[in-house]
């Protein structure tokens, strides 16, 4: 988990560098406020990356929070959390992968058939395959949800959804 945390900070640092480069290409009038913001942000990002990389968070934590009883308790809690989440890393990663696939399916459905048609096409397989809900319950929940969305947002409010690829 700590390595993933560092990777996330590194990605943010990369984004910060890109933003700085883009800011330098702006006209002087347009870059005033962004430059005031991105320079210290980038400096702090690098500091955070160094702190995470050199196992300094403990000392930094003390500097930021003081060596108080609460600070010590929070450090212990933080370590415990890191330890626990480290143990659960593998199942977490596989859950994240499954979540990505379900998310991609929903986006693809919304893009191709439109939101209102995507609701039953996404909800029924999710409830049956992912949540292992009984067939009868799956059908009832899907019909109620899809019916509610269709009647309220499609018919009553006539919400202007973006056009779908099909239909």
């Amino acid at each position: 988990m700590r390595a993933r945390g560092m990777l996330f900070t590194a990605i943010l640092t990369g984004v910060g560098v890109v933003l700085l480069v883009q800011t330098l290409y702006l006209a002087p009038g347009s870059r005033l406020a962004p430059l005031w913001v991105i320079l210290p942000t980038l400096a702090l990002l690098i500091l955070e990356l160094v702190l995470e990389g050199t196992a300094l968070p403990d000392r930094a934590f003390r500097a930021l929070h003081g060596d108080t009883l609460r600070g010590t308790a929070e450090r212990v809690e933080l370590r415990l959390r890191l330890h626990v989440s480290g143990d659960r890393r593998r199942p977490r990663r596989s859950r994240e992968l499954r979540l990505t696939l379900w998310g991609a399916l929903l986006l693809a459905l919304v893009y191709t058939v439109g939101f209102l048609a995507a609701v039953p096409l996404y909800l029924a397989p999710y409830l049956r395959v992912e949540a292992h809900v009984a067939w009868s319950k799956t059908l009832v929940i899907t019909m109620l949800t899809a019916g509610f969305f269709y009647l309220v947002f499609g018919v009553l409010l006539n919400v202007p959804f973006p056009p779908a690829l099909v239909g």
Partner: protein
Amino acid sequence: MILASALEGLQILLAWPNILYPVAGTLLAMVFSFLPGIGGVTLMALAVPWTFSWDPLPTVLLFGALVGGGTFMGSVTSILFNIPGTAPNAATMLDGYPLAQQGEARTAIACSATASALGSTVGIILLVAFIPVIRRVLLLFGPLEFLLLAIWGLATIALVSRRAVLKGLIAAGLGLMVGFVGMDPRTAELRYALGSEYLVDGVSVIPVFLGLFGLAEMMELYVSRRERISSQSDVDAAAGSTRAGVLAVLKNPGLFARSSVLGTMIGMVPGIGGTVASFVAYGQAAHGAKDGKFGEGDIRGVLAPEAANDAKDGGSLLPVLAFGIPGSEGTVLLLAALTLHGIVPGPELLQDQLTLVFVLIWSLFFSNWLTSVLGLATAGHFSRLTLVPAQIIVPIITLLVVLAALAYRGSMGDLLLAVGFGVLGYAMKVHGWPRVSFVIALVLAALFETNLHLTLRLHELDRLSLLDRPISLALFALLAATMVWPVINRALQRRRGVSS
């Protein structure tokens, strides 16, 4: 004269069948604002053509209720599902949702309802008090005051992210940078738009809130395999207490008063809006708290933004009625409805048609209280939604978030933006980055940058005299106190620790 008009306005509101308009308007606004992404503004837009053939009086009664009725219900979805009903309710999510996770949803909803009703009352009282001096009050606010207000809001970031100050400051910097995306307010140069037409107008806060909080929370709920939103499984234990929610407001009169006055004052200033009001109120609440765990389920984190958000309704009516200057989408539609019926805002309206103005004010007052009373009565039922099994609630709430993003402007870009910020929000949550710092900075970015440019320009022209601006001096003092107080407080605590 004001008292007589106020009494006459109240009599008109309570007369049969006039009372039906605010009741119907309030109920409709409650339903619409409970639907994420739709909100009371959509209902107002739909209501403008309905009222074409109506007389001015029912129109005023209906629109007063639509303005007031939509504010509270957005907080219910914020508390239960971490999805803001409307943008100003986003600040309520920061502590409301953690409270729901701890099995205190009913307490949070009751606190929100009470703060909303009392906050709107403060807003309306200040509105009536300011009617005679509104012109002088509005002229006290200029670019320097707005800039200081934005800096004050930003200064609270370190305080709301006290468990990870460094990460909080970085998140705030990135939030400001996201707020700078789009056309530069002064030069019209396109910044960080990545060649996309969608980003020309900047990043809209609604898809960001939906992703950063709503989607991210559903992702975490799925990945963590928690069984339900609430950590409590027993129905009674999970419900929390309505009484505790009401008492939370009554036990914090200072915080309530500060937040309500702040909300009214920000509401009075055109163009700032309720989102800034609720986030600034949240920041000052976190600043004032010595023992609170803001962001982890502190009831004061619900009280402050809700009081400010509802108090702002009263304040935002002032510039509309006195000058015809709307400060938000809601007041734009209110103004449209009024002018369509020949009610032209301005000093004449406040002099010649003061009774009609009070009908509008009473309608707003009535709808705010009606929503809160209904909210208190139904808080227990709503809070049971946090007990629905996660395997069922995750796909349904995800679909609601997708719907809200698509319905907002009918754009696929909003959905993609919400998904992008959902992934970012999930990563921030997992790795302990405070999302609140990011959103406060994002909300304040435009206010900060526009007024920074204007202030610098006025300074160049030598038209900025600080000593002539009492509000600026007061804001400077407030800013200095915000910066210095934590240092003094820590020194005092250490001293007490040593002596004990």
